């Protein structure tokens, strides 16, 4: 039996350091033979990570807790702000409603009853997320998700973060090195040697050969190990999600004291959508589009118009930094002794902040299921591949949901609604959902990443009409549902009276005031 005692992570972006942190924190003690798990990160100082303003899921809080990084450090050192929701603007063209929310908090009463069908029956209600959940109102008022920095005993809404990705990497790196004993090797990998077991060693410029029992490919789009050395191809998903380009830019606030949005703003455009993430001193923005439906020049104009609308005084470049990508994921994420995590494992447009989430889920599964001996590695790899493939596929389906419900009429949007571009399972569910509400039991797989609740926020946020004439036979909790709808209103009023503004909470965490 050959024990697994050493993990070599090639590449030091968010994926590399999050994986290193989770591995080192999970396996912090020594084994019975005295052996510890060695975790090395080989990071080039000549390659710069793709650092844009990024959003996380609420899962990042438990991920960071596992690693041992405190929220205050994130706010003080990574320009972090709080994220309570995504707001989708202009994804629908008709009616007075221009946007809808996908909040992180569950609807009122969801522990005991799903009030959605009752909401659907109530013709006086029009804004699903705001009617069933307090959180969209907090976002509209620019309020923080909690009263104070330390609010374990007080009210706290569910939240994730908006981060400066570059600074976040520095926080992770310092912590991994200082607190978790992760070895940091600054070097360039020049070659990868393989054998029957997978990666034999990597050849570096200054440190010769570096061996390991497991290699993690965090080399980004270049996928040095999983693709170049081990030939694992991509599963293309561009027939479902059409975008292949992103223009990115960071823009200052028009006034440094401007309120900070507590949600990711996602505004639909002619051939894609623009993300807008409020950090402490600037907003991270990007235009995700399909080059098949809009030329780069035209896309630049679309992006410029948006940026001008949020800060007319900002001087904008004539061309923006551009990222090209292929939407898809690895056919196998874990091949022999090599695991791909981060961009090397695939790429999806950041519509629901799935990129960091998939890194977290991959790294947590790797850390939890790390094979003790190389002999059992194939079993672990098979399970990992099945689970991750399901997670990627269900994420793709959920992203597609946003597009198929739109009624915009530009070519890009029409093409997105073409039946052959819609994954079969999603298409079937959409057909069923015409006659019944979304049920929790529609999504029961262990590896489900988006719950029924997320689907409800999107589907009913886009004002989906549902014919419940058959379904009403099973509805018996009108009074209970009505109470929850009233409770939600009362809770909103109470929270608005108590919570500080988002910037106000950040101020106190920075000890500015």
């Amino acid at each position: 039996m050959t024990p697994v005692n050493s993990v070599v992570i090639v590449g030091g972006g968010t994926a590399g350091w999050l994986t290193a942190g989770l591995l080192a924190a999970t396996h912090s003690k020594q084994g019975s033979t005295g052996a510890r798990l060695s975790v090395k990160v080989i990071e080039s100082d000549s390659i710069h990570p793709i650092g844009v303003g990024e959003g996380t899921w609420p899962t990042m809080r438990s991920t960071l807790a596992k690693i041992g990084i405190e929220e205050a450090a994130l706010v003080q050192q990574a320009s972090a702000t709080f994220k309570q929701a995504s707001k989708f603007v202009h994804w629908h063209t008709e009616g007075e409603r221009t946007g809808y929310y996908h909040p992180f908090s569950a609807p009122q009463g969801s522990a005991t009853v799903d009030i959605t069908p009752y909401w659907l029956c109530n013709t006086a209600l029009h804004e699903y997320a705001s009617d069933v959940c307090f959180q969209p109102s907090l976002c509209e008022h620019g309020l923080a998700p909690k009263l104070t920095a330390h609010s374990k005993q007080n009210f706290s809404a569910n939240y994730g973060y908006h981060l400066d990705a570059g600074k976040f990497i520095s926080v992770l790196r310092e912590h991994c090195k200082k607190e978790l004993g992760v070895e940091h090797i600054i070097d360039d990998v020049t070659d990868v040697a393989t054998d029957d077991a997978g990666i034999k060693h990597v050849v570096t410029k200054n440190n010769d050969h570096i061996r390991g029992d497991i290699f993690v490919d965090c080399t980004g789009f270049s996928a040095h190990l999983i693709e170049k050395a081990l030939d694992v191809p991509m599963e293309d998903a561009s027939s479902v999600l059409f975008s292949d380009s992103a223009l990115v830019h960071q823009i200052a606030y028009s006034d440094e004291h401007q309120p900070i949005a507590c949600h990711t703003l996602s505004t639909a455009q002619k051939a894609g959508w623009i993300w807008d993430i409020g950090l402490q001193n600037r907003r991270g923005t990007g235009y995700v589009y399909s080059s098949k439906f809009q030329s780069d020049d035209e896309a630049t104009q679309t992006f410029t118009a948006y940026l001008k609308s949020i800060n007319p005084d900002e001087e904008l470049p004539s061309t923006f930094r551009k990222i090209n990508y292929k939407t898809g994921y690895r056919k196998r994420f874990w091949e022999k002794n090599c695991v791909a995590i981060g961009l090397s494992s695939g790429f999806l447009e950041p519509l629901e902040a799935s990129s960091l989430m998939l890194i977290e889920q991959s790294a947590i599964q790797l850390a939890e299921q790390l094979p003790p001996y190389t002999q059992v590695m194939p079993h672990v790899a098979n399970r990992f591949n099945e689970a991750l493939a399901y997670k990627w596929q269900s994420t793709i389906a959920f992203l597609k949901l946003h597009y198929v419900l739109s009624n915009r009429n530009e070519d890009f949007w029409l093409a997105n609604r073409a039946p052959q571009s819609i994954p079969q399972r999603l298409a079937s569910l959409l057909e069923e959902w015409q006659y019944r509400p979304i049920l929790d039991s529609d999504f029961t797989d262990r590896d489900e990443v988006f719950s029924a609740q997320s689907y409800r926020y999107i589907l009913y946020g886009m004002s989906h009409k549902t014919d419940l004439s058959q379904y009403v036979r099973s509805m018996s909790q009108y009074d209970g549902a009505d109470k929850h709808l009233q409770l939600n209103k009362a809770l909103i009023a109470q929270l608005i009276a108590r919570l500080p503004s988002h910037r106000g909470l950040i101020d106190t965490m920075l000890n500015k005031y």
Partner: protein
Amino acid sequence: MSSYTPLDNQAHRNLCIKADKRFSHSAEFNLVSLGFNEIASISGCMPIVVTANDANHSHTLAAVVGWPEFGNVYCSDTEWMGHAVPLSIQSYPFNYAVEQDKLTVLFDEDSPLISNNSSEGASALFASDGSPSASLKQYQSMLSNLASGSQQASAFIQALTDLELLSNLSITLHFENGEPRESTGLMTINEDKLVQLNADIIHQLHTQGLLVAINAMMLSLRQYNRLVQLTKNANNPVVKIGLKTTN
């Protein structure tokens, strides 16, 4: 000397407030006006009475917190000596004015609790974006409770007056040195008249939520014993108290 100024998020954007858990600004208070919504919480801590104001015949609902000889007996050098604090004391140094149904927040510019810098333990009134901080919001919500409680208190007293349920309360304090002092000017519920009310009116008071308040006021007079107890470390403390209602 207090000078109340309307609070403004531009002019006062850098002001900070310190919390004073001893509420020492109220050290000389004897009576504190009370909102109707405070009866439940205060009645187990302080006597609740109605003040008889002969000059303009206006009555107020009030909590008794001390006597001229001692000042506010709930105020000590180290802590607040009760489990409840009237809102008007808690909300200091803020106050409110109502103009055209809109609540304006005022604050005492001379209060030592207000400062221009963030010293130890002080919190900002406004965030850098000009929005009220969580602590200011707490004061704002106290003030709006205070405003609604005070309106309800007037209605409550009007109902008591209409039913002639108020009678004068005379109090005799017996000091340690043997001297007694009688004080008047306060009113309380006339128990005899209350028992004589007919069932319909009792039922009406009950459904309006007034009956429980009336009972709470009567029971709260027991808290005079608490005041007596709180004088015991003073010079010449009160050793006995007598209460008498007169029509």
